[in-house]
């Protein structure tokens, strides 16, 4: 048995959760998941991104994966794509670096220039 207040809260939360399945994202993180990327830990980097975003309750960030883009020696590689801004590619990622990217770039909008390997 739930009260009207509770029901409305559940609905609000559910509406936000549903958003994740659609494509109403502010920002997109694309992790390179080629063979070499996986070999040097792209999977852990991906998990780290997911954990960090879940922990912070960010609802407008999409994480997807892609194949190798040709920066094999710099793997793990991830792109951060934001509408209206140039695409930023980070390289040599680790789980720690992923957390910093979420904190500085995704949340605060400050590009982490130390990790950038390519930019449009």
């Amino acid at each position, binding site marked *: *048995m*739930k*009260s*009207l207040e509770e*029901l409305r809260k*559940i*609905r609000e*939360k*559910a*509406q*936000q*959760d*549903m958003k*994740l*399945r*659609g*494509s109403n*994202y502010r920002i997109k993180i694309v992790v390179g*998941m*080629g*063979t070499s990327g*996986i070999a040097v830990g792209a*999977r852990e980097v*991906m*998990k780290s991104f*997911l954990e960090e*975003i*879940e922990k912070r309750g960010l609802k407008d960030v*999409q*994480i*997807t*994966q*892609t*194949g190798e883009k040709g920066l094999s020696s710099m793997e793990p590689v991830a792109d951060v794509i934001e509408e209206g801004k140039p695409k930023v590619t980070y390289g040599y990622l680790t789980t720690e670096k992923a957390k910093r990217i979420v904190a500085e770039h995704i949340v605060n909008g400050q590009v982490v220039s130390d990790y950038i390997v390519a930019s449009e």
Partner: protein
Amino acid sequence: MKYFRSHILIETDEASVQQGAREVMNALKQELAKHNLDQEVNVLETGSLGFFERGVCIAVYPDDVIYGNVKVEDVSSLVSEHFLKGRPLTHLVIERSEKKNIPLGYDKRIVLENSGNIDPEEINDYLGVGGYLAWEKALLEMKPEDIVQTVKDSGLRGRGGAGFPAGIKWSFTSPIKGVQKYVVINADEGEPGTFKDRLIMEGDPHKLLEGTMIASLAVGATKAYIYIRGEYKLCINRLQRAIDQAYEYGLLGKNILESGFDLDIEIETGAGAYICGEETALIESMEGNRGIPRTKPPYPGVKGFMQNPTVVNNVETIANVPAIINKGADWYRNIGTAESPGTKVYTILGDVAVPGLCEVPMGTTLRTIINTYGGGMKKGSRFKSALVGGAAGIFLGDNMLDVKMDFHNLAEYKAVLGSGAILVINDSVNIVDMLESVIKFFRHESCGKCVPCRNGNEQLYKSVRKIKAGYAGEDELDKMLLIADTMQKTSFCALGQSLLLPVKSALDMFKDDFLSYINKKKAINK
């Protein structure tokens, strides 16, 4: 809710389950777990994705890729390619190539707007798309009279076949005071070729519940039943689950959301008799009697279940109600045509390239439905006729392709919209064969209560067999028409009355087909 990077929606409607959707789902879960992806990729069930004859279909979000004909053997390569390496498994993808010419038309959908997008077994998913907002509004802000008036103003007409305005039906029962009243949802979808209600219930059971709740409130019923045919196992399970969740959330039961209104919803299962789709036969069946129709009047709205006032509505009709309450009667009136507002769900089957279902505004032409939503005729076949409205429907020829399909326009051609089944027939088919199977069906399903229907069907069947065997003269055709006409005038209920439609339309439009059989064996004609 946990954060997942990807969601797999696997359709688990009746057809897909038969083709192994459950096995595919289990295999997917195992395979994902094997690759430690089960914390990243979420596997959900959903209703039909709208593709037919494509085996098990799954949709992957946010990538927006749809795979078809997925088998258990494909799962390991699917997981390793798509989810591990991020490359869609191209030979199974059906979205990109087909979506171009087969629009799913989600933007125009009302009753099926969520099917294929949400998990029908999760009430939170339904809430997430604005579910139960209409119920809240009706319960807390509207008087029962206002609800009846809104539905009346919207012009919503019954989608079960006859097209009776729903608001007017409610207004008969609503003012009756001092007795137990009931709402019964007719989910006994027995019309051959019709499976729209099944897809609504499988894909979005909460929408039906919400509509049922609003209808109950409007007419003052504290008990509602969903009469559903026993073959629809999955619908029954999903609806029961939805009902349980609604109780848990306090949307059903006593003193709902502290409004003082009580409501219980229960599922009744039928045993698959066509006649039980007739509302008074349905009520007889619910009372535990043999399913035969009652004398009308009194109509069920005054004396129905247990001799108490009962509103009987079709699933699709009721599924329109939440949207009408949310967005208002004027919004609804703007969709479709002036006489028949709203959308209609059609099931398209037979000789079209992509059999399936579509929900389109009322007044869409048959040509558009076949060419756009059915993908045109099957390769190498030409259109001859379409049997519209199920077995109790009418054969339309190619001269009728541009008729706007709604209650009003079709009535001008003495045709009916019926249940919304469109069976497309190619030019290699002899209409006599089609008519034979239609009559055979009615002969089998006649309940036997009244003579015209019981004997008429038998005689029609004999006639059509005689014609096919080549023993009949041309007078046999007049005889058939006379019998069907008599049945239409004298039968007790719609079952016997509606046979005139297919018989007359077949004879009018495709007389040559009949003549090809006539007097073939004149020499031995007795």
